[in-house]
């Protein structure tokens, strides 16, 4: 066990955990931030995507000891009131079916749009290919990303 000070969604959190624990389980089990989902545990599905600084990363393969003082943002901290342009676009397009993959999709899409505010379809597909939606909402996800891009406030 070891002590860590993590900056999560703008707050500093003190923890005493096994240093190999992936951030996914720190969030879900220790901090009860369960918006970040477990899907595969091996960086294959994207359900666990969070932001480390400005980058989208897979939290299931990121040990707590590797984070240092970088800022972590989870779906719960993406916006104050659920009004990030990507979240709004998701609501507008009524994207989800079961909804389980969508936090990961939104976190990946929001980091991507920050780097590439006007993506082509191919760029969207390339950036989002690591996020599985078992229900098959891919067309709506792409549409929502374009809707968000068009609001130009990402």
């Amino acid at each position: 066990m070891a002590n860590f000070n993590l900056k999560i969604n703008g707050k500093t959190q003190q923890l005493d955990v096994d240093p190999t624990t992936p951030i996914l389980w720190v969030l879900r089990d220790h901090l009860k931030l369960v918006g970040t989902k477990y899907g595969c545990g091996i960086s294959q599905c994207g359900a666990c995507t969070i932001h480390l600084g400005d980058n989208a990363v897979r939290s299931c393969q990121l040990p707590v000891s590797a984070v240092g003082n970088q800022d972590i943002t989870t779906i719960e901290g993406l916006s104050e009131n659920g009004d990030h342009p990507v979240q709004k676009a998701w609501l507008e397009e009524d994207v989800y079916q079961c909804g389980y993959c969508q936090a990961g999709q939104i976190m990946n899409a929001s980091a991507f749009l920050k780097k590439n505010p006007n993506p082509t379809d191919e760029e969207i597909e390339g950036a989002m290919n690591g996020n599985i939606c078992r229900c098959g909402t891919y067309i709506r996800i792409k549409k929502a990303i374009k809707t968000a891009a068009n609001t130009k406030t990402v």
Partner: protein
Amino acid sequence: MTKIVTHYNRRSFIKVSAAAGGGMLIGFSWLNGCKSNTPEPEAGVAVPKEWFEINGYIKIGDTGMVTIYSPNPEIGQNVRTSMPMIVAEELDVPWENVLVEQAPLNTGWYQNQFAGGSLSIRLSWNALRMAGATGRRMLMEAAAKEWGLKVSDLTASEGVIKEINGERTITYGEVASKAVGIEVPKEVELKSIKDFKLIGTSVKNVDGEKIVTGKPLFGLDFHRDGMQLAMIQHPPAFGMTVKDFNEAEIKSMPGVKDAFIVDTTVEEPGGFDEKGFKQLIAIVGESTWQLMQAKKALKANWETTGELESSELHVKRLEKALASGEVQESRRDGNPEAAFKKAAKIIERTYSAPFIAHNTLEPMNFFANVTEDSAELIGPTQTPEALEGSVSKLLNLPLEKVTVNMTRIGGGFGRRLYVHFGVEAAAISKKIGGPVKLIYSREDDMTQGTYRPTYRSVYKAGLDENNNLISFSVKGAGLPEGPVFPNRFPAGAVENYLAEKIKAPTNVTTGAWRAPRSNFTAGAEQAFLDEVAEAAGKDPIDFRLELFDRAIKDPVGEKHEYEAERYAGVLKLVKEKANWGTTKPNVHRGVAAYFCHSTYVAEVFDIVMDKGQLIVQKVWCAVDCGIVVNRDAAENMIQGGVIDGVGHSMYSQLTFENGAPNQMNFDKYQLIRHSQAPKEIEVFFVENEIDPTGLGEPGLPPAIGALANALYKATGQRYYNQPFMTEKQVVG
């Protein structure tokens, strides 16, 4: 207006006051803290001080806010929005004033509380309409009593009751307290379909805001103070059981509270008790990561008690079954053998598909809290009633001592019809004497079984010298069940017809997988008919329409399961919408139509091949599911079905060696991804006033046939064996 007698469904309308303590309000307090259970600012109604239960589906607040209980499990098919919409339509309240809550399992109030067979809306359509209409009627009676008038002197709309020949109005909120005392009417009037205001529109998913903000919704998100976590380890192969394991070592690991072998055998198991392994190693502790580490450190002795099967063995068994297997079900019209002898042309083809896993993105999990004399279960189940029954048997508790609450479910596809993970949670909770949440890893989930069976079918057609289809036969085998529906199309459309369904044994466990058997049969049959149409020199749509024409005018045999007019209807609609018959350079087209789960779907695929890689440019879908309840959500379901069909027929398979699947996670098990999904899917509904039927499954099956037919056009090669990426002409 349609009059409908309420009594056959009377149990739903027992007044809540009369059934106090019955459990209606014990539901989900863990969700009540969340924002969207309080009204949205634009809702225009304030939070009520007092709520009044009108019936098992409806609660009205003194401000006019309405809570509608959604009875069925939500697996992504959107019933948590569409079922309350139906109640709200008949109750006649503004949708902005409606809050939706998940009802717990309550067989006294609700019927058919399960999610399977695309049946939620179809089976509950009348009950939901009745619930709303009954509520409306009781509110009107209360107002009539208040004013000394007759109900016929009043109208009710948008949550307000008005006097027809006067000025007085009263809102539902104002009169709700009085409606509670009104006797449940024996008969109520339902709206005319043409008067629907809400049904047929597009209403946004009621959980949308919670989903995009990451609120706890799913079983895996459930938390109760004091609960432990548990993980299981099942034997590595079908045909193996656990003997013992390094218990002392595991128990001494950090964060591990307990470790033991748990037996989850249920006496007289029902269909939903199907499971891969009954004895499991269970590890209990504080955190998932520590449990995962403990699982890695397991050293278990497994015992081989059955045959360790391989994919080669499976193929051999299917071939043998087709040659000499036991027929489960069959149909014969005319004399197919004699007709084949007379035929000018015979086409015979064999189709196959592998075992596949459901792979819901949320792995199996369940919360259980078992005490001496009760069991409480909370989690993702498609069949709460079956779970209640199995837990009651496992623990030897009377049914009324077992409660089941449903969370939102991160994907179903049939996987969570099977209740073993809830039963396992109960067994573990009993052993440790406290509340526990069982969590499967992805590997546990993918290797546990309950798979879509593997199939192999032989189709044969005979054409006469004028290219008329005079004989048709299908013989299909599966492990363990054959993929043949003897009374479906083309039964009724061919003079000489034979269908035989054959079973064969396996110790790999299987279960219903989205559109069971149809998910294979549609692809095989529709690809075969495409080939037959080509051999007959006919356009594939015209060829099918000719067959439907025969089934309409002069059906063959005793009965068939489909309505040929509606079947032909979706084909004609898709033909028109896709401009069938036109061509674009390098774009290749395929068509298919299929009927299952009481819904008709026809699809046209436009594909291009880019260096051997499939790109589905556009899909047109024509759907006849009767009345469409929630239009945009219905489109979403069909789009998801198409993508699922493309994904699994192109890319997914489980292969076996020594009794174990070779694929354990998404690194080896390929699921369709963003770049492989169709670029566009347009959905058209046949407009009619037929009672609504299901949408969760019917979009998937025809996609496989239409894709196979388009792939043929693109590559000159027919696709007989799924997944199609294993064929040389395409790249996975």
